[in-house]
């Protein structure tokens, strides 16, 4: 399947091209825009974007694989990201991750069979003061305990 932006996003993409000195610099915002539309980045999407930005697909893949916020595989409805960096680690992030794995019966990087949850371990979420942190889609859940996580998950439909 070939990729193209929706009409609305095409406008936003054109505006992005205007606000950067060269096409290469638009790589990051363009990738975010595409992921927002598609949910994750496929080979076709990356090839199409590379063509739009006059880059080699490998060049763009370099950027995609560098940043953990870009996903190359489909995710569940709720993307759970536990922080694995120092402050969260010291405050029980590992237990939190283990708990989620047991509760959802999946391992890190996997999606539940019903397509509801995907669990990922990521580097610093930048909220060390409120460790441990769990990011669910675009929301942060802070100062977590195992009980608190259970209550949050129960609310997710």
């Amino acid at each position, binding site marked *: 399947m070939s990729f193209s932006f929706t009409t609305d996003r095409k406008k936003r993409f054109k505006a992005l091209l205007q606000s950067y000195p060269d096409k290469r610099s638009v790589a990051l915002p363009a990738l975010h825009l595409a992921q927002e539309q598609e949910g994750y980045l496929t080979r076709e999407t990356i090839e199409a974007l590379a063509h739009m930005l006059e880059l*080699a697909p490998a*060049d763009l*893949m370099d950027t995609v*694989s*560098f940043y953990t916020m870009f996903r190359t595989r489909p995710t569940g409805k709720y993307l759970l990201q536990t922080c694995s960096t120092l402050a969260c680690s010291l405050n029980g992030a590992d237990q939190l991750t283990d708990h989620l794995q047991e509760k959802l019966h999946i391992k890190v990087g996997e999606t539940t069979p019903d397509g509801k949850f995907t669990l990922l371990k990521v580097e610093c979420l930048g909220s060390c003061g409120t460790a441990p942190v769990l990011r669910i889609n675009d929301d942060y859940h802070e100062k977590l305990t195992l009980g608190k996580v259970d209550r949050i998950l129960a609310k997710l439909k």
Partner: protein
Amino acid sequence: MPLIKIDDRELEVQAGDKLLAVALAAGLEIPHYCYHPALSVTGSCRMCLVEIEGMPRLQTSCSVPVSELPPEKKVDGKFDMVVHTQSEKVVAARKLVLEFLLLNHPLDCPVCDQAGECFLQDYSFQHGNAHSRFIEDKRVRANEDLGSGVVINHNRCIMCTRCVRFTREIAGTGELYVQNRGYNNKIAVFDSVPLDNPLAGNVADICPVGALLLKDYIHTTRFWHLSQTPSVCTECTAGCNITVDAANNKIHRIISRVNEQANGHFICDYGRYAHNKYVEATITSPLLKVEDSWKEVSWEEAYQVIKDQVVATGGGANLRALASPVYPNETNFLLANLVDTVVEKKSLALLPIQNGDDQTFPAGFRISGDKGGNRRGTEDMTRKLTVKPQTLFRGDVGVLLALDGDGRTAIDGDVEKLLKASPFTVILASNMNKFTERANLILPVAGPFQREGTITNDRGLVQWLEPALQLTGEAKPDWQVVAELGQLLTGQASLYTCAGDVTWKISQTIAAYSRITRFKLGKKGQFVQGIK
């Protein structure tokens, strides 16, 4: 111009030049991996760290530009930058950088093809520690085939990204990229799209360690068994500089040799693997065609046959000749001289060669479509005598003396008619091919990588072709055979004892070449005079 001091050397340098480049140009060695003069600067390997007075931390010298300070701020009243490359801090930093680069390195030098020409080995020996404090398990990855005959051994890679920058900046194809980051990063190709460009082999040349390897060369020999001959590629008219690595009279690989006047830093894969086309010079003695089969004869017999045939076909006046752009200037010059002495009218033409398309790459590297490597030189040597091929088969056609085209001869209509018109064809060649099969007599001469002499590239750069292989069997140097034929047909004694003698004769005869001698050419060549 800024005045800088590196250790105890004072250098006056161009403002804006990078410190490492300046130091290397002055002959000062600062160890480095990721820096390459033909590629952009990344400063990722940290090996070129130096201490610069007034700067808070050690700096990567590859990325620091030299600039001029206002008079009141100059160090010691005159220096714009004072650099220490051997200070305690720098020495300690190098040890740490090397320890870090070697964390996951398998230290498999005994089976590594890079051993002996590896910068990890050299710098570890000069600047590193004998031991590592890393006691954990090393990261182990399987080798991967990247395409175009290039294989990567991930374990040996130090992520200098020279190869990635090469495919982006020089080849312009950008097949390689850095996948993931940190501990998980590695050089990869995008979703199984292989490395595919005619310059791909260069990534193995520029890899400072044993990570990128050419399939063609893996485990064939050891570096220290190779004799390295600086020579010139004759596969097209660009005249790229190469180093031919041979052992026991067999070529194991061809790598690029830097010459800014010709190819810069790189060569194409057609030239890199050219030796595989000419596995060996298969013709080892003069061959006379007797009733459709080849009979080996001695040189004396061969020359007698030629003499008899020349007499039988109306003497030297009916002689025809084909000069070849794959042979050096010397051979073509002597052939032209012979024709000039023996024949009254112009009766020499250039052997047509199969051509391809010109290719130019983003950073300026070019591959010429003209596969007659010494086209310009051959034209310069024979200019006064050449006619169009179609005039050669008119009138009484006598013996045809031809130089071979190394299997690249385009046997077109004119050549076909000439071969048919000629009662006796003598071809000087090293390998059997479609053209040599048409001969009545083949004289074995030096083949590719055995030839010696000067060749002129399409921009007028004259370079010395150094033979990397010895002659096999009865074969003689090509210039010598033409000189002997001249002696045979003109009765005048040959004055030449080596190819360089002929080069000298050319300098005395052809104005544009008046400054060219073997000695003056050196390893970088010289331009012909009066070049436009």
